[in-house]
């Protein structure tokens, strides 16, 4: 889409007073993939016993000083490069002051004034195939807070600091998003990109990625309205629901003569609604100031070059290459590049298939792509396995596809052998050998089978020869059955025609 095209039919909320446009900006918090925390040597692994992965730095004991984890810096820079952003070789940390039991320091170390990554952008693809570019204002590094558990005791909250001090990237979009679908597509594209880069595992269930959703509404052509911020929404579906609900709520308020208060709201996944966090009138008064414990964060161009060199081919480039060089449809290119692991697997299988057949990759790409996205994905779904756990490896699949391409196996036989491979873990060649599944294209054997079928059905032969052409399919079926499905279909067709007509 062109932005122009999208502008012709924007998503709107139908109100009593007319159509309202919605304006959305997202702040995505992505936990940085690293062994240790941003400023301490405690582990970041998910699911440990409470407070088992807490250093005295994370617990904010007096006299402890933070020391930055270089890997978190590297991952933030790599992420910035992946969104074509400006990388700031000089950045600085600030203290964001607020009080909550899961924040032992009484402040979060963040980067308000001088973030590590500046302006960039991300292209999103909507369901109808149109694309749109969403601006990204900045990415900064900050500490995560601990976790409060409220439902274990009637009058107490329990606090676990294991997550306290883990590195987060806060990725702040421009208010370029105009519909719930665009919000969903943006988060999905960002998650995919982070997983390709390897800077965040994107695991929304474990809280590795969550979003603060800023929403406002306006009549077409009007300036931005007052926005609200719905905190910590943790799935693509919930983010879309939060956008939609909040926009409708604002339209209702405005149309009944009210005004929108700039406030922080909470999303309730059970009802799909948002509600105000009451009593937080001071919540935005964070009194930021430069953290006196931390010197500026500085690196050179060579470090940025190393980060750039370590990036894999990114999803957009990969999709484009699959279409341009491999001749795949946008749909297949999208499906095969959805996850980096899938794309890697496909590319290994493609290279192996081409090598076995002595052909170029573009000549066999469709064969491999169709089998991977169809038969293999279907089987994995049935087995409840990831591509990394596939019982059939890429080289084994290539062997099967090569046997199909060179005429050894017919389509139905390939499926049969594939099932046997899934079951036994054996190679295609071995299964074909053991079970005698080789496709028969020897005309002598096929002629013999045809003759038996014709002899057994003299009445049908007479009808066919009398002009009932439709019976041809019946004969093909009988011959294939007589040969247990192993006859080469092309040869059967040719010989049957010759013998019936002759």
């Amino acid at each position, binding site marked *: 889409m062109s932005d122009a095209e999208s502008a012709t039919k924007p998503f709107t909320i139908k109100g009593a007073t007319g159509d309202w446009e919605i304006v959305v900006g997202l702040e995505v918090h992505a936990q940085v993939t690293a*062994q240790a925390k941003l400023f301490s040597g405690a582990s970041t692994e998910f699911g440990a016993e*409470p407070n088992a992965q807490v250093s005295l730095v994370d617990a904010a004991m007096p006299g402890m000083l933070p020391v930055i984890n270089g890997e978190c810096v590297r991952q933030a820079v790599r992420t910035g490069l992946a969104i074509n952003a400006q990388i700031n070789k000089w950045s600085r940390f600030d203290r964001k002051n607020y009080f909550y039991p899961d924040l032992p320091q009484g402040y979060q170390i963040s980067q308000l004034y001088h973030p590590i990554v500046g302006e960039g952008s991300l292209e999103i693809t909507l369901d109808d195939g149109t694309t749109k570019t969403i601006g990204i204002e900045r990415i900064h590094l900050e500490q995560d807070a601990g976790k409060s558990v409220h439902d274990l005791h009637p009058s107490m909250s329990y606090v676990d600091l294991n997550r306290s001090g883990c590195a987060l990237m806060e990725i702040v979009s421009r208010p370029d998003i105009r519909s719930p679908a665009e919000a969903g597509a943006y988060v999905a594209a960002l998650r995919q990109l982070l997983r390709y880069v390897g800077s965040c595992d994107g695991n929304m269930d474990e809280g590795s990625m969550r979003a603060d959703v800023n929403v406002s509404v306006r009549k077409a052509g009007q300036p931005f309205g007052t926005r609200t911020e719905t905190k910590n929404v943790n799935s693509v579906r919930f983010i879309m629901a939060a956008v939609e609900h909040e926009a409708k709520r604002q339209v209702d308020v405005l149309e009944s003569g009210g005004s929108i208060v700039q406030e922080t709201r909470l999303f309730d996944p059970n009802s799909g609604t948002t509600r105000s966090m009451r009593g937080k009138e001071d919540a935005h008064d964070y009194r930021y100031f430069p953290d006196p414990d931390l*010197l500026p964060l*500085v690196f050179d161009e060579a470090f940025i070059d190393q980060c750039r060199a370590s990036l894999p081919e990114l999803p957009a480039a990969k999709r484009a290459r699959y279409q341009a060089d491999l001749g795949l449809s946008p749909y297949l290119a999208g499906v095969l590049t959805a996850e980096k692991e899938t794309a890697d697997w496909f590319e290994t299988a493609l290279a192996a298939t081409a090598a076995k057949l002595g052909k170029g990759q573009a000549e066999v790409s469709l064969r491999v792509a169709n089998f991977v996205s169809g038969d293999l994905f279907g089987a994995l779904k049935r087995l409840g396995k990831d591509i990394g756990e596939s019982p059939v490896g890429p080289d084994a699949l290539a062997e099967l596809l090569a046997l199909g391409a060179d005429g050894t196996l017919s389509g139905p036989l390939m499926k049969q052998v594939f099932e046997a491979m899934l079951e036994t873990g054996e190679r295609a060649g071995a299964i074909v050998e053991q079970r005698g599944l080789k496709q028969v294209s020897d005309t002598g054997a096929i002629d013999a089978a045809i003759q038996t079928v014709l002899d057994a059905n003299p009445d049908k032969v007479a009808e066919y020869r009398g002009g009932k052409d439709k019976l041809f399919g019946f004969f093909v079926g009988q011959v294939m059955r007589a040969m247990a499905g192993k006859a080469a279909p092309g040869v059967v067709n040719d010989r049957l025609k010759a013998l019936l007509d002759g």
Partner: protein
Amino acid sequence: MSVDSETVRKIARLARIAVTEDEVPGLTEQLNGILGWIEQLGEVDTKGVEPMASVMPGHLRWRADAVTDGGIPDKVLANAPEATSGFFAVPKVIE
């Protein structure tokens, strides 16, 4: 720039410092004294001078990404007024 008694009460609340009504006038006066002194710095011509990020020269040293700490829940919880099942236990903080 100066602060009034309302601002002093607000700052105290944000910093979670208990300030009695009796103390407000004195603190207001003291804070305004400090602000006045700081304002004198505005008289210095700082054109072309980079804002200072730290009194120390240099930049951050980086740590390797390795787990070298943690595994000390007893020490972490040692000063907690109340701890249960490995958690800090605090008065309920949700409505």
